[in-house]
């Protein structure tokens, strides 16, 4: 067998446990045993397994209780479980499947069936892990979890959140003077840095277009002090760009500069798209304002601009200076714009 898994065999009966472990080892897996549900849960807390074979009738804590505890634990919920039992009647098997067990093997366990079921469960787990990894590449683990728990339910709701737009100043001009490979490499490095800064502060990057990106703080899951988190992320992003520029300077490459616009308020948020391809997005005046503020950084010659609602939510250790009221495209009245002041740039 090409790839063995790490399996936990839970059975109070020593003969059954040893025989199952033996069969699994012969089939190329690593397997360890637990003599009841309580011991199994202790091992699950300490170690990572790919699959569990679970007996139903056991003293101290039975198989049903183990499945119930696992359902309530986000780390253990996705661990595949094959129920092994010689319990008479289908009722208990049905109950196990309802509690999240993937499959059922009758005891004494037939080694050929064991091989097939274990292989299929491990394959399913690998697929699930890959999907999860893909999802997390584009979202934070919180959003990935929210998506998984909601079963990718599309639909919207009103949320209070902070939105950020950011892009590279003069990127189009830059891209005409360098090799295509260099442009893509620059974008990849840039995105990696920006993602780190944003997710490090609890934000979610939900759109990337060319050299620009959109991020949300406080949605789909609530975030304490979302406006302050967004501004902290902006400051981190600026700092990362400065470090990146120092590296570029060593290679004789021109520096890049970014502009960031941030706005806070109520917006409509939800997963838009189809069941096959969906993205988390936010729409509303607040979102438009953040995009306009980002564009306005060119005019204002300031890297980070925020709206009044964001500024009002900032603590004493972060300062934003009013630039006065400015006409913003799409908004009937002039809007007060604030520039985030960082002592490092002063």
């Amino acid at each position, binding site marked *: 067998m090409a790839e063995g898994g790490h399996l936990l065999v839970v059975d109070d009966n*020593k*003969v059954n446990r*040893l025989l199952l472990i*033996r069969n699994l080892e*012969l089939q190329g897996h690593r397997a360890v045993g637990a003599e009841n549900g309580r011991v199994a849960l202790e091992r699950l807390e300490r170690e990572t397994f790919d699959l569990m074979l679970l007996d139903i009738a056991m*003293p101290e804590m039975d198989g049903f209780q183990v499945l119930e505890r696992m359902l309530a634990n986000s780390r253990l919920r996705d661990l595949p479980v094959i129920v092994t039992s*010689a*319990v008479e009647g289908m009722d208990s098997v049905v109950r196990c499947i309802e509690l999240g067990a993937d499959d059922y093997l009758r*005891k*004494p366990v037939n080694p050929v069936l064991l091989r097939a079921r274990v292989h299929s469960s491990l394959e399913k787990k690998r697929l699930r892990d890959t999907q999860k990894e893909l999802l997390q590449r584009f979202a934070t683990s919180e959003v990935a979890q929210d998506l998984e728990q909601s079963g990718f339910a599309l639909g919207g709701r009103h949320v209070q959140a902070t939105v950020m737009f950011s892009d590279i100043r003069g990127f189009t001009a830059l891209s005409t003077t360098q090799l295509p490979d260099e442009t893509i490499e620059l974008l990849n490095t840039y995105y990696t840095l920006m993602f780190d800064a944003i997710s490090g502060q609890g934000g979610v990057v939900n759109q990337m277009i060319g050299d620009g990106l959109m991020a949300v703080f406080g949605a789909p899951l609530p975030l304490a002090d979302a406006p302050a988190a967004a501004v902290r992320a902006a400051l981190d992003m600026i700092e990362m760009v400065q470090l990146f520029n120092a590296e570029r300077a060593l290679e004789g490459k021109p520096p890049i500069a970014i502009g960031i616009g941030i706005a806070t308020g109520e917006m409509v948020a939800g997963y838009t798209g189809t069941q096959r391809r969906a993205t988390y997005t936010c729409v509303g005046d607040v979102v438009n304002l953040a995009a306009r503020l980002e564009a306005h950084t060119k005019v204002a010659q300031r890297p980070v601009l925020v709206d009044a609602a964001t500024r009002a939510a900032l603590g004493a250790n972060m300062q934003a200076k009013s630039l006065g009221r400015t006409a913003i495209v799409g908004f009937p009245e002039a809007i007060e714009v604030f520039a985030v002041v960082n002592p490092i740039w002063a």
Partner: protein
Amino acid sequence: MTPDAIDLAVFRELQDTAGAEFVVELVDTFFEEAPLMLAELRDARASSDAERFRRAAHSLKSNSMTFGATTLGRLARSLELKGLDASPAADEAAIVALDVAWRDAAEMLRELTRG
């Protein structure tokens, strides 16, 4: 020795899939565990603990089937399905029959593993 105490087809298959040496160890484990299960069964009967009674019969059945101890397995299964009897005497008689079947199975397993 009761020659049909162990279903040889089941036992040989166990040796083929798990390895003969491993089966010797597994039989030793069964020799340690089965008397405990029988004692548990008697104990559960004496204290009229239906849950323990059923579980002990279940464990004994499960292991009997693994080694091909057909008669032992059948008797244990009937106790598991029936549960505690209204008359303790009926269960006690059944446990005696189970004990006899266990001795027969154990003897043959010893023969089969000690060569």
